[in-house]
């Protein structure tokens, strides 16, 4: 087992490098760069172009050098100095912008995983063990609705309902009066009051999906000979279900950990804008649009790293759960 984990971690490092290169190429891919965008904008508004500033930036980031030199400069700054470069658009170091937003993204991701698990696990198991019951049909209906409703629409509906029925404003993560406060118990409670909306919005599609997968996996497993054999030795039905087929059908829950982060990043940007959440989504979208390359690149790199860590964690958990993976069969 230790060997397996070490192997996976060793594999992790070259993968990170490959990803960092891909990210760098990706953000260079659109024609032009931030400087040309700025120059164009200045020219349009008839402003005097500050030649000294342009030259300074060009030199600092090696923008006149070949691509691989730029990449080496960028990555070595990150690895050796923790310097992610400057955001052109915001006019401040990238590091100052991303950390808090990344932290919130991780909080929301973990929160929605937990939400998805808590809701879908018992429902999926119940629905499989009571196939074709009224509740099972209800769950299936909910599953279709949950999958078919776009997240941002769900967010809008919730916000509208909260406002028109209870007079709640549900955007953001804090009420205005706590926004700039230091952390306190009251602030935490206020956070929880706001947090459930994004969790429900972000978690609904995932919940519907996971219920569907768990239900069909479990239905398959319930018919397997090992379940019958366990029943034939006199194990009680409740214990049997949780110990034998569920233990196998649970795999998508674990492998889902790796997938949740990327999904949140790609799918949640619009939700974050609608709900004005301080996550990476909206800022990253902007950075990509305005070719603020160091900001966009850093976001992509950090998120890819998180996704890789997620996959690593889920692989290790899967190996812990299944001796066949552990022993490399």
């Amino acid at each position: 087992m230790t060997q397996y984990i070490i192997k996976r971690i060793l594999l992790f490092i070259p993968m990170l490098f490959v990803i960092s290169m891909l990210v760098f190429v990706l953000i260079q891919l659109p024609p032009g760069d931030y400087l040309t965008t700025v120059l164009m904008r200045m020219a349009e508004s008839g402003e005097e172009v500050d030649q000294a500033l342009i030259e300074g930036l060009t030199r600092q980031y090696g923008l006149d050098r070949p691509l691989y030199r730029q990449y080496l400069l960028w990555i070595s700054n990150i690895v050796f100095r923790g310097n992610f470069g400057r955001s052109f658009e915001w006019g401040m170091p990238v590091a100052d912008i991303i950390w808090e937003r990344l932290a919130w993204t991780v909080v929301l991701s973990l929160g929605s995983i937990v939400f998805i698990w808590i809701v879908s696990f018992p429902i999926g198991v119940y629905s499989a063990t009571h196939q074709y019951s009224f509740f099972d049909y209800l769950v299936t209906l909910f599953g279709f609705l949950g999958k078919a409703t776009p997240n941002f629409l769900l967010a809008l509906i919730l916000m509208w309902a909260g406002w028109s029925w209870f007079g709640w404003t549900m955007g953001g993560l804090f009420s205005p009066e706590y926004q700039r406060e230091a952390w306190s118990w009251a602030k935490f409670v206020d956070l929880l009051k706001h947090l459930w909306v994004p969790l429900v919005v972000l978690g609904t599609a995932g919940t519907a999906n996971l219920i569907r997968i768990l239900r069909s996996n479990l239905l398959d497993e319930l018919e397997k000979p090992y379940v019958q054999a366990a029943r034939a030795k006199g194990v009680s039905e409740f214990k049997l279900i949780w110990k034998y087929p569920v233990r196998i059908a649970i795999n998508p829950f674990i492998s889902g950990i790796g997938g949740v982060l990327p999904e949140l990043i790609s799918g949640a940007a619009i939700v974050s804008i609608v709900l004005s959440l301080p996550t990476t989504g909206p800022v990253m979208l902007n950075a990509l649009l305005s070719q603020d390359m160091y900001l966009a690149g850093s976001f992509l790199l950090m998120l890819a790293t998180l996704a890789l860590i997620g996959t690593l964690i889920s692989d290790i958990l899967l190996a812990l759960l299944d001796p066949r993976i552990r022993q490399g069969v």
Partner: protein
Amino acid sequence: MDADQPLLEIRDLRTHFHIRQGTVRAVDGVSLSVFPGQTLAIVGESGCGKSITAQSILRILPRAGRIEHGHIHLQLSAGGPGRGEIVDLVGLNPKGSAMREIRGGEIGMIFQEPMSTFSPVYTIGHQIAEAARLHRTADDIEPRELVLDMLAHVGFAHPDRTWSQYPHELSGGMRQRAMIAMALIGRPRILIADEPTTALDVTTEAQILRLMKGLQAEFGMAIIFITHDLGVVARMADQVAVMYLGNIVEQGDVDTVFHAPRHPYLKALLRSVPRLDPAENIGLEPISGMVPDPFSRPAGCPFHPRCPEFMPGTCDTAVPQLLPAVAEPGRTRAACHLYT
């Protein structure tokens, strides 16, 4: 315990499946008796209802299956909580504790697929010990000791190593031995073996059959041996019941069944088995026709569309009964109008 008194007596068992396409009468009027220490073989083609009969006894039918009719009388062991009483398993709640005591405690079961009858994620030792904890509560011995002892009995040279192995680390034959250990750890008086050697090669099959006979001599349990292999029947059985389309069509002791078969289906079945002696293979012929699909059972005798001795007007109208009603030595009981 009276050796003439059946341990298990099935009367007119009917188990049906209600599915969207209609009703499958998988078992349709089976009567059987199992006597202490004896082996009853149930033979028949694929789909004739052998496994469903076994699953009806243990009440572990698939969800769509229901026992519609009949009794399954089991004499509980005198030393157990049932104190030698006779219970009707059909009347028990399949999820209730009385039925769970019987599963593994009074009746053990082994299955066809040694590859998939153990959960891949728990060790062999853990899975067998679970049965020991359920049924050997009166013993002072640690479950682990009981399991190691049983593993040695079924032929593992290093039980303590096997204890911590996972199913995928054992070969098919070894896994079937472990399955037998799991079925016998609760000291059942009846062992149901549903095609336990079908998935194994002939050498391994011979070893497993020998092991089962040895364990039967040692523990004295009765065996219900389900198979479609007449060679295995000849080797293992005391009594034989031949099934066709959910019915028992012929029943008798093993010698009589092989030497004086009466039902046309059994005769055809015996003719279709290859022999070692080529001279005897001249008459080798498969049974004509096909097994009818489960939704359209023939009226009257279920075998009549394929029967070479079909009597129009009789065989396709009236269902033949298993006769004579009481078994006579030297004669099988057959369900066929030729003998009524």
